[in-house]
């Protein structure tokens, strides 16, 4: 499955290794292959600590691979790319800026005139449902609202490639469902290629076109499953659908094997 069709994100035989403080070499990724088409929503699941976040760092240009090739739209990644958006697991909104300041940060960094940036930001604040909170600081918002700020902050840059690192894992179940719904709507309009890392298999199936299961460290792609559930999907009810359950069962067998291996290895 080499890239004959155009790819938004491609990793070929990628390896990423770390030197631990006591001088050992720790391999996070080895022979890692994954291709994501423009506009595709791909989720990645795997045992904890298997190197899922490392993958995102490589694509974002925050780190370099020791071997292999990482490309964005068939051009090698060299530093942070402007077409990439990243939603972090932890809060990464700026605590000293209010909501408006946070959302307009991207355009301002990229040289958009202040007035235009502010107008765009106000528009995005409305779209993520935070109207009226423009001048609140992050500590005055709930966890879900801070995530909305992070989404607006990312989507305002109009990313063609969206990387998400367990973005909803810190939220309670109800809020998480709302945010998943919200994300699907935003994605349907933005049509970006998404790589969504999660440890929650249900979440992966609910959101993605394809789910890639990773092996325990060093991570490789163990298997890729196409999720042929029709869109638009109803996050609240889909998980009770028979087809959903059948897919979940199949992937979860795959995943459990790796989780058990990871546990045996430690």
């Amino acid at each position: 499955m080499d890239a004959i069709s155009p790819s938004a994100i491609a990793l070929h035989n990628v390896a990423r290794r770390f030197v631990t403080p006591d001088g050992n070499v720790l391999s996070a990724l080895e022979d890692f292959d994954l291709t994501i088409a423009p506009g595709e929503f791909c989720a990645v699941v795997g045992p904890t600590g298997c190197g899922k976040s490392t993958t995102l760092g490589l694509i974002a240009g925050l780190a370099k691979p020791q071997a292999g090739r990482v490309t964005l739209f068939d051009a090698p990644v060299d530093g942070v790319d402007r077409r990439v958006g990243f939603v972090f697991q932890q809060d990464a909104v700026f605590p000293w800026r209010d909501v408006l300041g946070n959302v307009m940060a991207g355009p301002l960094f990229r040289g958009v005139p202040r007035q235009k940036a502010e107008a765009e930001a106000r528009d995005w604040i409305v779209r993520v449902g935070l109207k009226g909170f423009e001048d609140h600081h992050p500590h005055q918002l709930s966890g879900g609202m801070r995530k909305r700020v992070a989404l607006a902050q990312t989507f305002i840059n109009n990313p063609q490639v969206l990387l998400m690192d367990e973005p909803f894992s810190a939220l309670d179940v109800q809020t998480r469902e709302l945010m998943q719904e919200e994300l699907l709507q935003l994605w349907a309009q933005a049509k970006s290629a998404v790589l969504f890392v999660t440890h929650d298999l249900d979440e992966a199936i609910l959101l993605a076109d394809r789910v890639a299961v990773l092996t325990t460290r060093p991570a490789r792609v163990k298997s890729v499953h196409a999720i042929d559930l029709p869109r638009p999907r109803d996050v609240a009810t889909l998980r009770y659908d028979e087809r959903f359950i059948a897919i979940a069962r199949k992937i979860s067998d795959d995943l459990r094997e790796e989780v058990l291996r990871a546990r045996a290895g430690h």
Partner: protein
Amino acid sequence: MTETAIPTTAPEPKLETLVERMRRRARLVLALRLAVLVFLIGGWELGVRAGLIDPFFFGQPSGIVEKLIDWFSNGTSIGPLWKQIWVTIYEAGAGFLIGAVMGILCGIALGRNQLLSDVFSIYIKVANSIPRVVLGSIFIVALGLGAASKIALAVVMVFFVVFANAFQGVREADKNLIANARILGASDWQMTRAVVIPSALSWILASLHVSFGFALVGAIVGEFLGAREGMGLLIATAQGSFDSNGVFAAMIVIAVVALIAEWILTMIENRLLTWRPETTVHE
């Protein structure tokens, strides 16, 4: 096993009594504080009057008050009191400003640049371990008896504290925030302004609190070593004429100056850090 009835009418603590209790406690604390003050000062004064404490060496509260009144109304032996206070504030303030600005700039520059910090960190450590007050003698020789030598000493006292904190604050900046800013498109300079400085700010402001005290110490020690005016000279003069009350009186004046500066710095801090969550109020 027998079932026992659980009393359902647990007495609910009334909010009003809770508030009342808190108020009573606050009043108690205040009263006890005053009692401690009265006990110490009163004990001192009584001790002197009973002949247990020699006022020649240890002064006497009523004597200190008289001294202060005398200084304020008739001036001191080296000129009007206000003039001496002003000179010391000027020296400490100028030293504080220069030292703080230099410390912040150097701290951020070294915190942001790995090579610079690797090269200079060893020298900073060495310089920091030298008792810097000793430099006062050199400054007096090089810069003379005027304000410049005291300002220089205050700068040296302030610089290292502020520098170390600014440097640490820059280093402690949240890696996630830095990654986020980079992906959002920030250049190095934008990163410094939007992420690094705001996150180092609480460290820097904390160091400013401590270092104004150091600036005062620098100015006063400089005046001890050689000066024509200032609170340090006033203390040295009082010491020279075995006037314990004069030393204590000057100490009180300096303490008041330090407290006012502290209060101003706290106001500035609250102004700059409005984004922080409200912490529970102490005191």
